[in-house]
């Protein structure tokens, strides 16, 4: 498979330089690290909110750096969690003395590296807290397994935590609202095609012309189930029902929805999905406060989408609607 790259080994490094070249007034790269921070980090008097993970999910995470969202984002190799020392540098660069909240997606690699980084930063007297996002309802949660993955719902955590920090709230408060999102959000994804990583150069899995994968994550892994090809409406119904079953919301509940493209899906198709999603929200008597549609958390060139539903109260609504000025999300 062909890609617009020079060498697979350089792609993350060149991407980060290309981002800074595009937005030098907004982004700064930590010298020698695969970490981008706000040009003006650390921001005086503000709790730092940072995230990070493997690359290949763009605009996640660096696209969410800016006023009202993230202060820093660490970029691992494609689909590989950043190392603890990278994360530690990021945390230190984003600490203005008010502490730092790390938004971590629930993957063993991410969790272990962030934990180590937190221990390292604590040794430098940085107050660090973690929130682990695990919104993927495809995977059953259990004490004896790795649990659910963190997927597109993570963006809502960034938004809410970032807005709270921008208000000047203290670390515990920022963590509290982030956890409120985690407790109220569910996501389910599907793929029409596998993605192709620069290193492997071939699809991670093979999928027939009349098949699709349900319950995929965001790392090109196959889903929990292979199914026969369905229409956009049927797919939307399947994803939405899975999420709603998990969330078990009261009728009349206010929600925010996301139709997220996996990277290779034309925007046209995301809106076709959103049409049906909004009809289903109506059918379930859920009040849609806001409906997001776009590529927020991708898997390189994978074709497919995920549906996210997050129950919101007045506090979350206010934080989600609060101003944000980032590359990928502006409010």
């Amino acid at each position, binding site marked *: 498979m062909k890609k617009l790259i020079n060498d697979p080994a350089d792609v993350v490094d060149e991407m980060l330089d290309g981002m800074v070249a595009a937005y030098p007034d907004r982004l700064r790269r930590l010298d020698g690290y695969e970490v981008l921070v706000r040009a003006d980090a650390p921001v005086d008097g503000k709790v730092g909110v940072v995230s990070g993970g493997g690359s290949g999910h763009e605009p996640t995470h660096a696209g969410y750096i800016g006023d009202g969202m993230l202060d820093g984002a660490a970029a691992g190799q494609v689909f590989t969690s950043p190392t603890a*020392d990278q994360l530690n540098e990021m945390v230190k660069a984003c600490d203005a003395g008010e502490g730092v909240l790390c938004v971590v997606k629930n993957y063993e690699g991410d969790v272990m590296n962030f934990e180590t980084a937190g221990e390292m930063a604590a040794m430098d007297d940085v107050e660090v807290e973690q929130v682990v996002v695990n919104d993927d309802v495809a995977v059953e949660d259990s004490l004896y397994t790795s649990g659910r993955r963190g997927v597109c719902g993570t963006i809502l955590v960034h938004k809410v935590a970032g807005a709270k920090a921008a208000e000047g709230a203290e670390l515990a408060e920022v963590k509290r609202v982030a956890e409120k999102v985690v407790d109220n959000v569910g996501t389910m994804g599907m793929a029409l095609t596998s993605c192709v990583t620069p290193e492997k150069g071939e699809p991670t899995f093979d999928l027939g012309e009349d098949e699709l994968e349900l319950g995929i994550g965001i790392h090109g892994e196959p889903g929990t189930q292979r199914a026969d090809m369905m229409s956009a409406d049927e797919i939307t119904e399947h994803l939405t029902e899975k999420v709603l079953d998990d969330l078990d919301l009261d009728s009349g509940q206010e929600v925010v929805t996301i139709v997220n493209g996996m990277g290779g899906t034309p925007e046209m198709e995301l809106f076709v999905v959103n049409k049906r999603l909004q009809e289903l929200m109506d059918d379930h008597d859920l009040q849609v406060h806001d409906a997001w549609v776009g590529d927020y958390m991708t898997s390189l060139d994978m074709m497919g989408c995920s549906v996210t539903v997050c129950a919101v109260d007045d506090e979350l609504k206010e934080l989600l609607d609060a101003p944000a000025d980032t590359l990928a999300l502006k409010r």
Partner: protein
Amino acid sequence: MADTETQREAVLAAIDAVAERLSAEKSYLTDLDSAIGDADHGANMSRGFGAVAEKTDELDGDIDDVVKTVGTTLISEVGGASGPLYGGSIMFASQELEGGITAETSVAFAEAYLDKVQDRGDAQIGSKTMVDALTPAVHTFKKSIEQDDLPPLTALAKAVDAAERGVNFTVPLKAKKGRASYLDWRSVGHQDPGATSTLFIMEELLDVASE
């Protein structure tokens, strides 16, 4: 036991051998990880040990320091799940080698390494991870030395054998830990990449030790 310099050279030879082996097996490991993971285990491992091999001139001092640097280098080069598991456990277990490499310190190293992997990753035997290769290998090694009084080389050969059984054992299992766990029953029938790379590393250690 050989003197420190000889041991250091053996360790450096082992690093080179492991780096070469993992680079040769890069696409095989990645293929295994494609089936039930995210297609990067080969790249992760060969990037990690490649970096270690390039650092050999920095690998001086006592044996335990050398081994510790191997661990910290892996931590800062690999990322993912395998970075902290391999790197962090090597770093932690390196303390056991303070007195150089003997039969006894080797057993202590192996036990500490396994403990740390389980401590970090919270995987049990049968979770379909590297733990399934490690556990029987460490147990076999320990018993061969401590109870059967076998020479270390023979013990290591038996441990490699046990690790291989562990790798094969992962195939029919349903994963409980790692990315393969997201696949639920679809992980059944596939060999675990991390168990496989564990076996490859042990095979190279045996190879170098036999020379």
